[in-house]
C-alpha cells in the first residue's frame, strides 16, 4: 500500500477495521446456513428479472433465499418491482431442476473460464460494495479476487473520444496506476479501454466491470485486453450469470458497480447522454467523490463533463498531479531518470511546443514557423521514441514520459 497517503480521503487502511466483512443487510438469515443459503443466492440471482432490488425484497419477505425458493413462483414474483413471463418460466424451471444443481452448474461454468462466484455472504465480497443499496447479490469474478479489496479509482468516459480525451485518459490512468491504486473501468471501446491499457502499461492493476457475463467478454474487440488484465494481476467482474444474453439494461446497471468498487470516479470525456454520466450519478448517489476533466466549450465530446463541473456535481481536474493530490495519493517517481536521447533543435522545439499545448500540425506550424515537411518528420521521430502520441492522426500530444523527462531536466537545471 505504498504511495497511499495515510490520512488521505481514500482512507484505505480503515476499510477493514470499520466495516464488518461481507454481509450487511441480511445478516440474521445468512449467518444461519452458510453453504446451502449461498447456493440458493446464486441460483435465485440468476433468474432473469430478479435484479438487486427484487432480490433484496424477496429475501426480506421470506427470511432467506432457501425459504423463498420453496415458495410458489407467483409468491416470489409478487415481491418484484416488475416481472414478465420469462421470470415465471425461469422460476418454474429452477424449481424443476432443483436450485442446488443450478448453483453448482453456474459455479462450474464460472470455473471453466477461470472465474469464481462471490456472493455478498462471502468474506471475499468487496467491502466497498457491501454497504451499497442495490449491491449485486452475486458477482462472477475472473482473476485476482483480492484486487477488489484494494483501493481503487474509476476512470470512465465515452466510447467515441477525441484525441484529447484519449490522451487525458491515458495520462490519468497511468498516474493512478503508478500510485499503486487500481484503475476500475468498463472495458468499453474508447476511454475505458484506453484507461485499462494505460494502467497495464504503467505496470499497475486494473479491474474491468463487464456488461456481459464473464464467459462472453464484451466488446469482442477487447478480448485480448481482457485476457491481459487478468494475466497482469487484475480482474474481470460481472453480475450476469454465465450464458446470459446481455441486453441494454445490463450496460446501465454495471455502472453502479464501477463507481461502487471505487473510492472516486473520474469522468474523462462524456457527451450529453453518455453512459459515463450514469456512472457519475451512481457515484454521487453512493456518496463517492466525483471528478471530471474539463474540455473545450466547442467540443461535443466534453459537454457532459463540462456540465457536471458547471453544476457543481463534479470537481474539476486541473492536472493529473492535482487529481492525485486531491485523492491523497503520491506518485512513485521512477528512481532513475530516463535517458534522454539527443534531440535535434527542431525536434526539441516541436516537443517543447507540444508540452505547452497539444495541437495539430497546422497549429504547430503557426506556432513554430517550421515547414510542414520538417514537422512531419520530427513528429515521426518523437513518436518512435515514445515522446509524442497521436490519436486519430490530427492532434498530437506529448506523452507522460516526455513530460517526466522535461520535468527531470528542469529539476537538474
Amino acid at each position, binding site marked *: 500500500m505504498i504511495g497511499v497517503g495515510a490520512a488521505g480521503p481514500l482512507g484505505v487502511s480503515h476499510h477493514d477495521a470499520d466495516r464488518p466483512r461481507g454481509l450487511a443487510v441480511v445478516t440474521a438469515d445468512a449467518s444461519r446456513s452458510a453453504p446451502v443459503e449461498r447456493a440458493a443466492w446464486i441460483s435465485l440471482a440468476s433468474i432473469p428479472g430478479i435484479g438487486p432490488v427484487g432480490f433484496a425484497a424477496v429475501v426480506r419477505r421470506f427470511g432467506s433465499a432457501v425459504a423463498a425458493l420453496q415458495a410458489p413462483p407467483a409468491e416470489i414474483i409478487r415481491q418484484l418491482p416488475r416481472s414478465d413471463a420469462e421470470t415465471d418460466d425461469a422460476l418454474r424451471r429452477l424449481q424443476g431442476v432443483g436450485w442446488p444443481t443450478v448453483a453448482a452448474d453456474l459455479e462450474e461454468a464460472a470455473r471453466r473460464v477461470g472465474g469464481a462466484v462471490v456472493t455478498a455472504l462471502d468474506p471475499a465480497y468487496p467491502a466497498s460494495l457491501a454497504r451499497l443499496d442495490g449491491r449485486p447479490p452475486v458477482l462472477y469474478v475472473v482473476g485476482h479476487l483480492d484486487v477488489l479489496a484494494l483501493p481503487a479509482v474509476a476512470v470512465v468516459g465515452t*466510447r*467515441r473520444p*477525441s484525441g484529447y480525451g484519449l490522451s487525458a485518459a491515458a495520462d490519468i490512468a497511468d498516474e493512478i496506476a503508478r500510485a499503486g491504486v487500481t484503475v476500475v473501468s468498463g472495458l468499453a*471501446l474508447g476511454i475505458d479501454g484506453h484507461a485499462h491499457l494505460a494502467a497495464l502499461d504503467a505496470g499497475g492493476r486494473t479491474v474491468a466491470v463487464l456488461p456481459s457475463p464473464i464467459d462472453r467478454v464484451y466488446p469482442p474487440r477487447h478480448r485480448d485486453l481482457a485476457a491481459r488484465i487478468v494475466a497482469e494481476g487484475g480482474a474481470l467482474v460481472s453480475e450476469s450469470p454465465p450464458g446470459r444474453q446481455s441486453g441494454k439494461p445490463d450496460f446501465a446497471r454495471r455502472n453502479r458497480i464501477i463507481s461502487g468498487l471505487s473510492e472516486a470516479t473520474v469522468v474523462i470525456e462524456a*457527451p450529453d447522454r453518455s453512459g459515463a454520466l450514469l456512472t457519475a450519478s451512481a457515484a454521487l448517489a453512493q456518496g463517492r467523490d466525483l471528478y471530471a476533466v474539463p474540455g*473545450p466549450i*466547442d*467540443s*461535443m*465530446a466534453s459537454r457532459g463533463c463540462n456540465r457536471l463541473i458547471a453544476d457543481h456535481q463534479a470537481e474539476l481536474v486541473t492536472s493529473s498531479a492535482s487529481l492525485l493530490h486531491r485523492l491523497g495519493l503520491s506518485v512513485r517517481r521512477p528512481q532513475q531518470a530516463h535517458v534522454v536521447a539527443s534531440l535535434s533543435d527542431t525536434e526539441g522545439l516541436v516537443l517543447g511546443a507540444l508540452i505547452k499545448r497539444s495541437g*495539430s*500540425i*497546422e*497549429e504547430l*506550424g*503557426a506556432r513554430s514557423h517550421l515547414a*510542414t*515537411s*520538417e*514537422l*512531419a*518528420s*520530427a*513528429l*515521426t*521521430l518523437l*513518436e*518512435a521514441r515514445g515522446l509524442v502520441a*497521436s490519436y*486519430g*492522426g*490530427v492532434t498530437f500530444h506529448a506523452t507522460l514520459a516526455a513530460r517526466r523527462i522535461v520535468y527531470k531536466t528542469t529539476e537538474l537545471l
Partner: protein
Amino acid sequence: MLSEMLSATVLGVDGVPVRVEADVAFGLPSLTIVGLAGSAVQEARERVRSAIRNCGFEVPARRITVNLAPADLPKEGTSYDLAIAAAILGASGQLGLAPTRRCALIGELALDGSLRPVPGTLALAAAARTAEVGEVIVPQANVREAASVREISVRGAASLGETVAHLVGLRELPAAVPTPIPSWSAPSGVPDLGDVIGQPLARRALEIAIAGRHSLALSGPPGIGKTLLLRCGEGLLPPLEEDEAVEVSRIHSVAGLIDRREPVIRRRPFRAPHHTVSTQALVGGGSRVRPGEASLAHRGVLMLDEMLQFRADALDALRQPLESGIVTIARVGGALTLPARFALLSAFNPCPCGWRGSRRHACRCEDGAARRYVARLSGPLRDRLDLWVAMDEPELREEPDGAEPSSVVAQRVHAAWRRQVERQGVGNAELQGALGADAGLPVRLGGLLQQRGRRFGLSPRRLHRVARMARTIADLSGSDEIRQADVDEALAYRPERAA
C-alpha cells in the same frame, strides 16, 4: 475471282491488322460475311451495297463471300466498311486487272459512298504500320489523328470513289502532313492550392503523391475541402513525355474521347469517375472490350471522391492496376491486357454520417455501422494506398494564410519528376523490389527503416512503399541521397495515423 484488302481492328487499346478477303463465285446472288463478325459488321452488307451502287459501281449478282481474317478474332464496329467494299470491287474486276496499291483501308461508309469517321483511328493506323504496308487511307475527319502515327503515309479520303481512284492509280490522294506533338500548357479552370485553407499535411501529401505517382487517401468530415484539394492535383501534373503522349492519345482515341483536330494529348489525364460507376466502366471490359477509367487515367490521375461509396467489387478490381500498372481482362479466347498506371487520389468520410472523430460535431452512427463502413476498404486495397492523411476542420482565421499557389508547388513536382525519369525512367512508385544504395538509400537508413517498422508494426510491403515515398520526398528537395528526415516524413503518412 478473289481479292484481298487490308484493314485493322482494335483489341483492347491496340490495333490489330485484319485481312479482308472477298470471293465472287457463281451461285444465287448473296453477300455473306464470315470471320466472327458482330452485328455492326453484318449490317455492313447493306451499307456496302448502297455505297457501291451510289458511287457508280455495281454489286455483282453472284454469290459473294467476305472473310475477315484472322477468323478466330471477334470483330466489331464499322471500320471495315471501306475495305469490304474495295475487296468486293476488286473481286468483281471493277478495279481493273493491274495490281492495286498496297494500302490499309479504314472507314465507315455512308449510303451515298462518303466516308464517316471511326473511333480508334490512332490505334488502327498503328496496326497498319505493323502490317508493313506503307499507306493507310482514313476518313478525312480522322486524318490528323492517324497522322500522329509516324513511319506510315496517311491519306484522307472523302468517299469510296476517291479511294478507288487512288487504289487504281487514277488520282492519288495527297499524303497528310504528320501531326506535330503539341507543346504543353498548364491546364486552365483547375482550382488552385492557394485557395485551399489550412490542411498543410494533406497539401504536402498531395504534392508527394503527384510527384512520385503514389496513391493518396484523405479521410475526414464533409465540407472541409477534401474534394477541392484532390482537384488541385490536376494543376500539379507534369507534362507527358513525347512517347507517353502518343500512348495516352491512342487509349483516348480508342475510347472515342479525343479531339480530332488536336489528337495528341500532352496534359496528363485526370479522371474522376462518379461513385456509381460500374466495375466494367472503372477497369474496362464488356463484350467489346473498352478501356475503363483506370486505363483512361494511364500515366495520370484516377481520382475517387467518396471512395467508400464505390461498389466493393469495383474497388477490389483496382488492386491489380495499383500493384502492376495493368488491367487483365479474361476473354473467351484468352486474356487482354490494358495499361493502367496511374496515381490514385482518393477521399472518404470516416463513417456514414461523416463526423466521426470531429471535434465540433457529434457522430450519429452506431459503432458497428461506422466500423463496417470503413471495412468496405478491403485489407489488400488498404495495403496498396501509400499516403494517408486524416483531416479535420481548419482553424478559423480571419484571412487566408498566404499558402503556396499551385504554380510554385508544380515547379517542385515537375523537377522531381524529371529527376525520376532521368535516373530510372519510371516514377518512384513503380520501382521494383527493395530500394538499395543505388537508389540513394544508405545502408544505415535501411536499418532505421526496419527499426521504425517494428516500432510502428508495419508490414514489409508497407516498408517498401515507405522507402519509395522517401525517395520522392528526397527528389522534391533535389537530393540524390535519401536522408533520415525523408524516411521519417514518409512514415508520417502511414495508414495507422488516419484510419
